[in-house]
């Protein structure tokens, strides 16, 4: 079982947190903080397994993480999961994100935390691995996106237009927002 999936950046800012066991918000933040402290002090050339922290798990639990550029992807798992298997799963997750966001970067995760959640829910469900085949996962996600597009149709167009305009108004946005979203939004306008 996977107990928690955490994504945070090099400074410990949470970008995604998914707990498959209930913790209240305070505890969640403490866990993130503790995990960050454990993980961040490790060099890049050391192994990717850690004995779990004090707050989450115990001796049966392990932290398995990968570090990509500015982000840490940490899975807290118990002994029923294969360590190398989870490492592969993290890779699948990140590659899926990469496909869905086209060259994923931290900003994508910041502004689309919900989308990341939806992608994750196609990989892992309730702490158990659901699907590991990337193509299947992407098909599922695309299907759902299509569904959303269909639903929003014309009624959502004005709102989206405004949000695009709002986005363009802020000069910093040019730096911040990921551009691929723009053409897509314009495409949506054609409805």
């Amino acid at each position, binding site marked *: 079982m996977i107990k928690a999936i955490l994504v945070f950046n090099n400074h410990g800012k949470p970008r995604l947190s998914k707990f498959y066991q209930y913790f209240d918000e*305070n505890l969640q933040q403490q866990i993130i903080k503790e995990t960050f402290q454990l993980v961040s002090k490790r060099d890049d050339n050391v*192994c990717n397994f850690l004995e779990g922290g004090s707050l989450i798990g115990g001796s049966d639990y392990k932290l398995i993480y990968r570090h990509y550029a500015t982000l840490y992807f940490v899975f807290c798992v118990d002994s029923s999961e294969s360590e190398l298997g989870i490492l592969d799963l993290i890779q699948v997750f990140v590659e899926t994100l990469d496909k869905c966001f086209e060259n994923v970067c931290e900003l994508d995760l910041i*502004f689309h935390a919900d989308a990341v959640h939806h992608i994750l829910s196609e990989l892992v469900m*309730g702490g158990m691995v*659901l699907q590991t085949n990337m193509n*299947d996962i992407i098909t599922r996600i695309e299907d759902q996106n299509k569904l959303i597009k269909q639903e929003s149709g014309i009624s959502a167009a004005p709102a989206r237009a405004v949000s695009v305009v709002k986005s363009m108004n802020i000069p910093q946005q040019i730096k*911040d927002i990921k551009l691929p979203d723009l053409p897509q939004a314009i495409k949506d306008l054609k409805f």
Partner: protein
Amino acid sequence: MALKKVKGNFERMFDKNLTDLVRGIRNNKDNEAKYISQCIEEIKQELRQDNINVKCNAVAKLTYIQMLGYDISWAGFNIIEVMSSSRFTCKRIGYLAASQCFHPDSELLMLTTNMIRKDLNSQNQYDAGVALSGLSCFISPDLSRDLANDIMTLMSSTKPYLRMKAVLMMYKVFLRYPEALRPAFPKLKEKLEDPDPGVQSAAVNVICELARKNPKNYLPLAPVFFKLMTTSTNNWMLIKIIKLFASLTTIEPALGRKLTQPLIEIISSTSAMSLLYECINTVIAVLISISSGMPNHSASIQLCVQKLRILIVDSDQNLKYLGLLAMSKILKTHPKSVQTHKDLILACLDDKDESIRLRALDLLYGMVSKKNLMEIVKRLLGHMERAEGSAYRDELLYKVIEICAQSSYLYVTNFEWYMTVLVELIQLEAGSKHGRLIAEQLLDVAIRVPVVRQFAVNEMTNLLDTFAISTQSNSMYEVLYAAAWIVGEFSGELADAEKTLNVMLRPRQLPGHIQGVYVQNVIKLFARLATTCLELQDMPGIVRLCDHVLEKLQHFNGSNDIEVQERANSACMLIEMLRKQLTEPAGDMSTGSIPTMAIEIVQEMALLFAGELIPVAPKAQRKVPLPDGLDLDEWINAPPPDDASSSSSEHDKDELFVSATHDGNDAIGGDGGGNVSHSDSKRHKNLELTPEQLERQRMARLIEQSNNPHYLKSTPNSASAAIGNSSNNSNADQYDNIDDIPITELPLDIEGVAALRVGITKRSDKYLKEQQEAASAAHSKDAKKKHKKTKKSKKSKNKVAYNSSSESDAEPKPLHIVNTTLDMPEGVTLSDSEDKDGKYDPNDPHRALDIELDMTVFDAPAKTSKTASAGTKEAVKAQTASATSKSLDPETSVMPSKKEKKSTDKTRSEHKTRKARQQSQPDSVPDLIDTRSSPCRTAADNGNGNNNNNNNTAPTDAVNSQHQKKKKREKSERSEKRAHKSSKLSNDEAVANRTNSTNIIDVGEPSAALPEGNLSLAVDMKAHKKKHKKDKSHQKEMRAHKSPASDYEQPMGISTPSKEIF
């Protein structure tokens, strides 16, 4: 309408959406909290509006805010509103929010039942999918109960996507609502052979999770898994299956034999490291479970170790880590094969990765030998000097002590060296939290190894002198406790006692309990020095000494710690008394002779501390049975008169001491070495007992001891061997009698063990007792104990051999006379077994899941008591019934379990109705739970029956295991059993061939397809229920016992199909 909608959307346009929120937070880094609270206010406004899109937007923002650590449960109702929207977009946002903030105890959840049910049954598979994903995070027992049926229906959906999710969801349902497992299990089993690999994998996943906690219930599935393992190419699933097999083999070693070959094939062929690693792990588990029962197991262990070596030398740190982890598992059972790779493991100690170093440290424990211990410790000390990070240094320190102290210092050949190492550790690691551990080691070594004492006291004097308490945060000052005690207790060994005394009297800031020890040991030293003065007739010396100590003790007198104060005061009084005697007859002063009273006082003081202390296991006292007629509440002496309160504390203390030492010494000096008897008579003056009385008492005690089976009698020859190097005869006597102290005596309730003890030499007795203590603590079964015992005694024999061989070494022999206390190595095993117990956490939902499967499919036989032949007869009936009717109804096998109802007819009719129901089940699944009232009289009946059975099994189980235990002890039966067994084996073959055909074809159909195998397996399961750690002979015995019904049993149910697969 449309206009209104558009209008609503236009209003919404200018609301803040999620992107705006994120951007806003990023732009307000300095006052993030303020900004967010402002946003939350806005969100509250938005949630009050009617427009669902606005609410949806608000909830999406809340989800983000939740991630930042804000509680959003107040919006629970709005989240449910959004979830109930008919639009997928909103639904998805709602379920995401719910999965992030709802939890099984949320009260709001009861509002959601119907909505979720609607979503689960939605035409759109993604509606159901999203609902399942969300539900999996917050499902409550109530929801599980209410929705179990809907989810089960989804398990047979036409869409693989939903099947897959529903299968995984069922696991969550089982956890919250264990009753669902029984009806759902057949379906779950079907899914193992689902055409869609994803569904298959999900089913494997769920069963693995279930089986991890209750492996015995899933043994009958082994053939299915075996087939999957040999045919599947999905590595993910393979890993899960292989992990599952690892847990199954722990309870069914026969399975392990079948597994080894295919696993080894995978090991040699696969390129996936993850798969390779898991295979190795399982092979290790198999080898552990069958230990020596396999002819070529050394070859497979060799292969594993070889492959692990490849992992360890790999440049990938992850593989290296896992390789070491797996090695440590092998180390427990096959230390030799690991030891050949010592070079590699030692090399890993220098790895730059801390995790890897720690794993290598774990392995070191098994790597040391007498030859290389010093070298390894030296390396570790070197590491400590270089290592940064106190946690790692602490770990190193701990390991150094652990490897040195293991098996009662088996590998330490030179204790002076070890003392030095300990002192070095103290100096090296000032900030460690292991001060107490080092202190314990110092005490332990000094007490247990007389030869090293002289060295120790001098080391300790230096330590007392030089130890600087710099950082108060650590616990290293604890070593002063040990040091002070050692120099005091063994003051006879001190080269310069006066210097030591001065060091001890130096005023220092120390915690109270250490100061207390200081004071106590100052008196010891004083007594020793005073005795020396007496011998030299050095009157001025003794006076000077008294004055000096009195003066210095004033410092302790003023201590804040009440204990220190009291001790110091008592000490002062004592010394003052002596001082008075010295000065009173002024005339003597000039002559230089010491007054007789003073001599007596000094002698008395010396006697206070005379006598050898021996190590005692921490729990030993509890094991000593209270002798008849001993009333601890009774006054030993008449209570002191009323003025006792005003009498000096010194007096009280004196008495206390005397009586305490009195008991101890008498036990020790049973037949009176000169030294001890002298002390006896001396001391008893204080107690106003005449020597005659004393002698009488002592004789009575001796007689009682000799009659008391709880006392260990020493055999002269082992005693003298044990004290080989102690030339002092009285000393030898003392040692001899040390064994009379019933320290490690254990009241064992098992006669078998007591019987076995007869005729074993005293030394192995020691290990035996040690082991028994651990074993009794672990409450393990007697059979297991026996097994262990033989191992232990073997070990002790080794030790004896080693002992004689290394006679010429400087190895201190007395190590082997002293009783082994519950030391580190012992502690390790102790805590291990406790851990095992601890696993059965009462709150673990898996406990509830444990019983369930007994009732599903293959369990009827599990209910048949293995001893009751009636049960087996009924089983026969049931089997024939099922065979004739060719029904695939799993319930047939429930029949025998109903025997408690004493009505097979009833069972049969019940069985028929159920069969009918069963056949219509695929269409009417909802009936099972929803319409419990109408067709399910039988179901309810069934349920009751089950409950009854469940209730009944527990006691029967207990009875059975008791029964088995008794049987076990009867040797006469054993031969009989062996006969049974051999006849059974041939039966197995026959039955095996018969079952095969059905098994392979109908793996999905439980009861009809696997009748015999299931029966026997289930019976086996029963045995496992009581004891997970069973030994093989016990198991065989059980089988043998049932052999009359052997036509219907076949101990290795799994072995049959697997054979076929081969």
